[in-house]
């Protein structure tokens, strides 16, 4: 709709020159950062590159990573999802609370159903009513957090028999020596990456994010495509809640608070532009792992945890300077 009438904001500024070097750097910049950072950390801390440390970091990053996969799909489709933090709280509280009441299988099924329902509400408001995704998901962030608290009455929820339930598998189990959260993260990343890059569905999402108008003029049902991205996002949140609930075997009501921004930070670090129509799951995986390794590396070097945020900021600025390809656009003029 309005997108075509909206003039693209043309900013004066730097011209992309020195094409060769710069384009290589901007294409591979993130990977280079990543490897340099890993190298630096390994010089300062001998545990950093140990297998157990790497596994720990990836396992810790997997919850953010799983959510980030879904949010990346939403972003490629040209929208944003800030409600994932509250949604994660909701789903985790739900699955943990229901576990003792109706058994793990039913709890998981019900949790997925409810999470997808919230995703459908997001998708309906943004896909079909064409409301601005930033504000809608911001509002949902608040509303869902309220719902969680009303549901639980503000109480923590716990699983009583932590040893005896197979529910432990998702957060604590191992398959072939690799932690299940990592496997789930990897599996989802591979599946979604294949869906996005190899299927007609993925192609349509890229089209809708890249030029919603042209997508519609090509007979693509944009509304459904946008709607579906929020279902995918909700599905990923549900998977993350499974891991989180099982890992902690309990949940506080605000367990997902702030995740939405960490997820976005990871995606941005990976180099996916927020404009839609571009990006990949791989980039997001790298971005999320970077976030994890920065945190872990600084911690091992004895810096307090919050120094990671400063480092993240600096890296984002550097990445932004390198990635001038995204320039001359403003996020909110492309999809209102």
């Amino acid at each position, binding site marked *: 709709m309005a997108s075509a009438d909206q003039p693209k904001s043309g900013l004066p500024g730097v011209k992309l020159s020195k094409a060769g070097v710069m384009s290589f750097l901007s294409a591979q910049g993130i990977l280079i950062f990543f490897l340099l950072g890993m190298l630096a950390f390994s010089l300062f801390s001998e545990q950093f590159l140990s297998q157990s440390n790497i596994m720990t970091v990836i396992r810790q990053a997997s919850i953010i990573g799983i959510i980030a996969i879904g949010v990346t799909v939403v972003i490629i489709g040209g929208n944003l999802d800030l409600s994932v933090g509250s949604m994660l709280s909701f789903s985790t509280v739900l699955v943990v609370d229901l576990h003792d009441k109706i058994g793990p299988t039913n709890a998981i099924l019900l949790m997925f159903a409810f999470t997808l329902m919230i995703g459908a509400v997001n998708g309906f408001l943004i896909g079909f009513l064409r409301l601005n995704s930033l504000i809608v998901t911001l509002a949902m*962030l608040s509303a869902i957090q309220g719902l969680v608290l009303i549901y639980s009455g503000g109480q923590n929820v716990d699983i009583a028999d932590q040893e005896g339930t197979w529910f432990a598998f998702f957060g604590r189990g191992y398959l072939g020596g690799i932690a299940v959260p990592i496997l789930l993260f990897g599996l989802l990343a591979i599946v979604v990456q294949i869906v996005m890059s190899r299927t007609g569905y993925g192609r349509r999402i890229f089209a809708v994010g890249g030029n919603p108008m042209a997508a519609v003029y090509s007979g693509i049902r944009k509304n459904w495509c946008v709607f579906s991205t929020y279902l995918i996002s909700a599905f990923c949140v549900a998977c993350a809640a499974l891991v989180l609930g099982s890992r902690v075997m309990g949940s506080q009501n605000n367990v997902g608070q702030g995740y939405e921004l960490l997820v976005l930070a990871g995606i941005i670090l990976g180099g996916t532009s927020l404009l839609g129509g571009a990006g990949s799951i791989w980039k997001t995986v790298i971005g999320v792992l970077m976030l994890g390794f920065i945190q872990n590396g600084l911690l091992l070097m004895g810096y307090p945890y919050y120094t990671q945020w400063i480092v993240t*900021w600096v890296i984002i600025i550097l990445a932004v300077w390198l990635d001038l390809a995204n320039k001359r656009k403003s996020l909110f003029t492309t999809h209102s």
Partner: protein
Amino acid sequence: MTSIKGFFRGRAKIQPIWIFVIAIFIFFSFMSEYFLSWGNITNILVQTSTIGLIALGMTLVMINGNIDLSVGAILGLAASLAVGLQEISMTLAIAAALGAGILLGAINGLIVWKTGVNAFIVTLGAMLGIRGLLFVYTDEQSFYASNFAFSDFGMSSIGPMPVLAIIFLVCVLIMHLVLTRTSHGRNTFAVGGNPEASIDAGIRLGRHMMINFIIVGFFAALAGVLLSSQMGAATPNLGRDYELWVITAVVLGGTKLTGGSGSIIGTLGGVLAIGILRNGMNLMQVPAFYVLVVLGVILISVLIIDKKVNVPSSKEVRI
């Protein structure tokens, strides 16, 4: 329906949010005996002044077509500087706090301007980074003002009017004039409304963007200083999530995320709407959990109404 649409869209520029503000004002007046009193009304003004001050700056940034997510962190940093440096000198402390806000706003503006990367990414990074700097500076500790003079100021009144409320209202007036009367304000609309035409007309986009980021940085810092003066202290977590409430208030006030449209009066309405809702629901003893849901639902409702009022359906291609 047409006449209502005309009313909302017309020259009169009565933001729909003001109708909502008046409605809830009347509603709570009937629902709680304590609501309609001078003391409570000034309380609402003081309580909304923090979000409100930042929202003034954010309105300009958003009319400009940008967004700033780092305001909560700037507020926190300014508050800690204002309290932490008081040992040396009060003037220095406040100057440093406001200076930090201006500087960080300038950095945000500069990066957005020079790279053209959208402000959401740039300021999201800044939000994390500034909070990190704040933690480094404070070592995660709260700071306390050693004497009560500072907090006395924050709690003081001139006549029946609390000083903070006065400051807020004066700033509202100033920003309203800046936006409607100065060429910077008018060019801000032009840049957000039609950047291409603005460039053709020789308006310097980058300069205006940068000024607006500086303004929002300044107001975030000012809000931080005033908030810390209410507390006589500053905590490192101060201002967390405020950016979300500020954006919510500005959007409620009718400013478009796409830029080019919005007003300070509307933003004041948006800020008051949130303040009155919170205050009224507190007085009515609505459980805190429900307040979150109510605010979310209201925000989405406003969006839907806005969509219905502003989009002429038959002229548009259905996409």
